[in-house]
Structures are given as C-alpha cells and as structure tokens.
C-alpha cells in the first residue's frame, strides 16, 4: 500500500497503514472469507444438482411466499413511512418527540420478541385477532402473518431515509406552491414527490431487502407450513436440520446473490440523493 501513499502529498495524518491494514484484515476475515466459503461449498455441486436444489418446487413455493410478503410489507411501509416522515417534519404537536422515538422501536426490539408478540396479538384469541376473526381474517399462522412480521421489522427504513430529505427541503416550496394556487395534491405530486423520490425508493428497497431476509419475527407467526407459509430463510434452516449442507448452501447462495444485487442498487440510489442531505448516511 506504500504505492498509494507516495502519490498523495496531502496525507499529513498518521495511521493510514495501520487503519487500512486492520480494516482490510477485519473485512476479509469477518465478511469476505465466510462468503468465499459459501461459494466454494456451492461449487462442489454440479450445475444440474445445483439447479435441482434451487428449483425444487417446495423451495420455489418459499421464494413466492417470501417475495410476495416482502413486496406487500414494503409497499405498506412506503406509504406509512412517507406519512410518518411528513407529520414528524412538517407539523408540531404534543407527543411528536415520543412518536419520533417510537419509530426506531422495531430496530431496537429483538426480532424474536416481535415475532412472539405479534403472533400472540394476532392469534384468534389475541387483542387484534379476535376482532379480525369476526371477518374471517386469519393473520397468525398464515401468509398475512408473515406480511405483518415483515412490516413491523422494517418500519424505520422509509421514515428514516425520507425524514432528513424533508427536513432539508423545508416547507417554503410547499408554501410557494400553495400560494400560487396549487391544490394539496398538485403540490404533493409536482413539488414534493420529485424531490423525495430517490430517498423514498431507497427506503422502500431497504425495507424490501430486510424483509426478504427476515427470520426471527417471521418463524414465530408464520406457522411454517410447507408450500404455504415457509419463507426461504426457513428452507435453509430446514435443509440444515436435515444435515444437507450442500442444499442449504445452494439456497443460501440464491438469497445472498439477490441481497448483494439489491445492496449495490441501493448504494447507487443513495449516492443520487446524497447531494440533498449532504454526505453519506
């Protein structure tokens, strides 16, 4: 790395060697080496074997369950997050600070606690479940339960990505728009939405990525019926319990690939709106 040092005359601060060295050591050991392990394990399978594992009908059913539930959960969070970011930045009302703090609860609360609690609250005898049962809506131990668990665990993403943009953007533009005679809907679609769209999309994509991988909250509420309410993370777990490490690795490689692709897309999107919030968040 001394090569880089020589071509940067501005480097006055000490610690480049040690900090870069330890960063590379840590990232290689903790992140890259285990991922390589998965690739090696998967490479032991022939292409036909690999395809047979990842296209197994039960596994394909789990992709559908996971992706559809994650999509519904992140679309709900798109609207909910936008609403919360809006009222938290634009209005002043009693309890606003508390409401703001509560938005982080799903990140602070262990997912197992969330799953256990939501399953109980939405069960047919639960606080919500007993009323939903009157309309024949089953949440706990059904697909809807997975949606609820994913929604809960990914609430903060949209709120926390849109909030700083709205704060920075300021209400002046909306006021100007209203003063010029625009309706609230016109103001929203023509003035606010274009400005917050990158952040909104990033938050929704983060929420979707998180939901795809969610495990702790989901398994408590899903009922985990093969073909119906098994998420892909659980399929990996099931294969592990059968000591079929190769199959677990193959399914995991699909999940890992999807999440890495999403991560790169999200990082690209984040760079697009960082000029508004100033600096990487």
């Amino acid at each position, binding site marked *: 790395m001394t090569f*880089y040092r020589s071509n*940067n005359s501005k480097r*006055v*601060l*000490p*610690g*480049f060697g*040690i*900090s870069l060295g330890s*960063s590379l050591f*840590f*990232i290689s050991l903790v*992140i890259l*080496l*285990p*991922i390589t392990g998965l690739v090696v394990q998967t490479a032991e399978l022939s292409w036909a074997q690999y395809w047979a594992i990842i296209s197994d009908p039960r596994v394909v059913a789990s992709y559908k369950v996971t992706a559809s539930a994650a999509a519904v959960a992140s679309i709900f969070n798109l609207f*909910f997050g936008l*609403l*919360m970011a*809006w*009222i938290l930045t634009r209005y002043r009302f009693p309890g606003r600070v508390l*409401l703001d*703090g509560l938005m982080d*609860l799903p*990140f*602070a*609360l*262990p*997912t*197992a*606690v969330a799953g256990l*609690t939501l399953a*109980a*609250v939405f069960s047919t005898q639960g*606080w919500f479940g007993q009323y939903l049962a009157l309309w024949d809506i089953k949440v706990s131990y059904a697909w809807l339960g997975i949606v609820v668990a994913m929604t*809960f665990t990914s609430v903060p993403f949209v709120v926390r990505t849109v909030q700083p943009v709205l704060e920075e953007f300021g209400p002046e533009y909306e*006021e100007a728009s*209203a003063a010029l005679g625009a*309706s*609230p809907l016109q103001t929203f679609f023509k003035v606010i939405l274009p400005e917050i769209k990158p952040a909104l999309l990033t938050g929704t994509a983060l929420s979707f990525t998180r939901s795809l*991988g*969610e*495990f*702790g909250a989901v398994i*408590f509420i899903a009922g985990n019926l093969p073909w119906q309410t098994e998420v892909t*993370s659980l399929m990996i*777990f099931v294969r*592990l319990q059968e000591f079929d490490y190769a199959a677990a690795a193959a399914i*995991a490689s699909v*999940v*890992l690939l999807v*999440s*890495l692709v*999403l*991560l*790169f897309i999200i*990082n690209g999107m984040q760079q697009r709106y960082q000029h508004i919030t100033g*600096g*990487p*968040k």
Partner: protein
Amino acid sequence: MSQTTLNSRQRWLRPLLICTGVVLTLLLLVVPLVFIFVAAFSAGIGGVWRNLAEPDMLHAIGLTLLVAGLTVPINLVFGTLIAWCVTRFSFPGRRLLLTLIDIPFAVSPVVAGLLYLLLYGSNGPFASLLDQHDVQLMFAWPGLVMVTVFVSCPFVVRELVPLMSTLGTEQEEAAVLLGASGWQVFWHITLPNIRWALLYGVILTNARAVGEFGAVSVVSGTIRGQTNTLPLHIELLQQDYNTAGAFIAAALLTLIAIATLVVKAFLQWKLARQE
C-alpha cells in the same frame, strides 16, 4: 410558522394526517409493546420471579451478556479504525470498502449463520485443524460471538463516517503539525468530537448483539443451559408451552430495547447540539 400560511382548503389535512399516523403507530407499535408486559405479568409477580430464577433462564441471560460484552468492544475498535481509514484518507477502493462493510445489513441472518457454519463447522476447511487443537467454535459460545460480530459490525462505521466526513481534518492536521503523536491526536482531538456518535454506534451494536436470533440459531444448536441466548430461550420456552416464561424473557429484552431508545434519543439531542 408554516401552518398560518396554509389556505383554508388545507386546514383539514393536518389533523387528518396526524391522527392517521398516530393511530397506525399505536396499533402497529404501541399495542404490541404493551402486550409484552401484560403477558409477562399474567403469571403474577411470583411467577415472574420463579421464571427469572430458573437456572436455564439465568444461564441464557449470562450468555447473552457475554456475547454482547465481547462483540461490542471488537466492533468498537475495528469500526473506529475503518471509519478513520475511509474518512481521513482517500485511496482507490474507498467506496468499495464502504459497500463491503454494509454487506452484513443486506444478508439474511440465517445466511450469515450458515456462512460461518460452513467455514468453521465439522465439514468445513478448518475442521481438522480445529479438531487437532481441540477447539470447538460452532455449537459453542465462540461461534455465537463470531456471527454476532458479523451481523452487528456496520453500526459503528455507519454512525462515525457521516460525522467524521463533516468534521473534516483541519483540527487533526493542526495537531500533527504542532508535533502531536497519532495517539495524542486521536485521544485529544478526534475522540472528544466523535464521542456521542461513537456511543450511539455502541448502543445500536449492543441492541443488535443482545437481540440477534437468526444467525445465532444456526450456529448455536440451542443446547439448553449451554449455548442458549435469551432470544433463543424465548423460542424454547414457547415450544415448551410456557408462554408466560417466553414473555418474561421477551420483557427483559424489551426493557433493553426501551433503554436503547431512550439513550439514543439523548445522544441524538447531544449530536444535534454539537452540529
């Protein structure tokens, strides 16, 4: 104030939006939160005490504290070094480094656990080496620490990088030019500037370390009284139909979560004042 300039057509909008937001938050977040404590105390104070005094519960609490106690310092040190590296120097691959450190947030916890199980488990490349030295990483506490380090390593970096980029390097450079050593610069200049953000990162790391479920459940083998952390213990208690016990363990973790939120709010207030 912006509200006063709004025309009358928009006046209904404000209360409508606030009410919708508050009601949805109550239903989605607050009611479940309240339910945890109601369910935990359904066994009465005596029941709570009995469940807490169970040896398996005590062991789970101890193991959870051990895992968090080891994970937090590791991620604190390396997170600070990584943040120092990417904000104080520019070098090719800097962006890539920042993306790599984000990987644990994108990876499903179960996949994270599996990555470590494949590498250090009995079928992995290090199996014979670990066997020779009689070291067991998987299905033992070191494995729990390893996966917890993985899932929680981005927090400190993510809190420090934006702040350290904004702060700039002028103060530190001045100190170096005046003859301060690297350690003196960090200790007297950088650390006082970043302490609240650092503490904030630590709090988030700790919350995740205490509550991690998916990754640890893959590498723990959930051996009662040996490799069972508190979140895993919740699952076991629930499978034993000890619902009250499960909610008592859940309530303990919820208290930690609430404490995290309170400290977080305080630190954000401190950080806002700093800026």
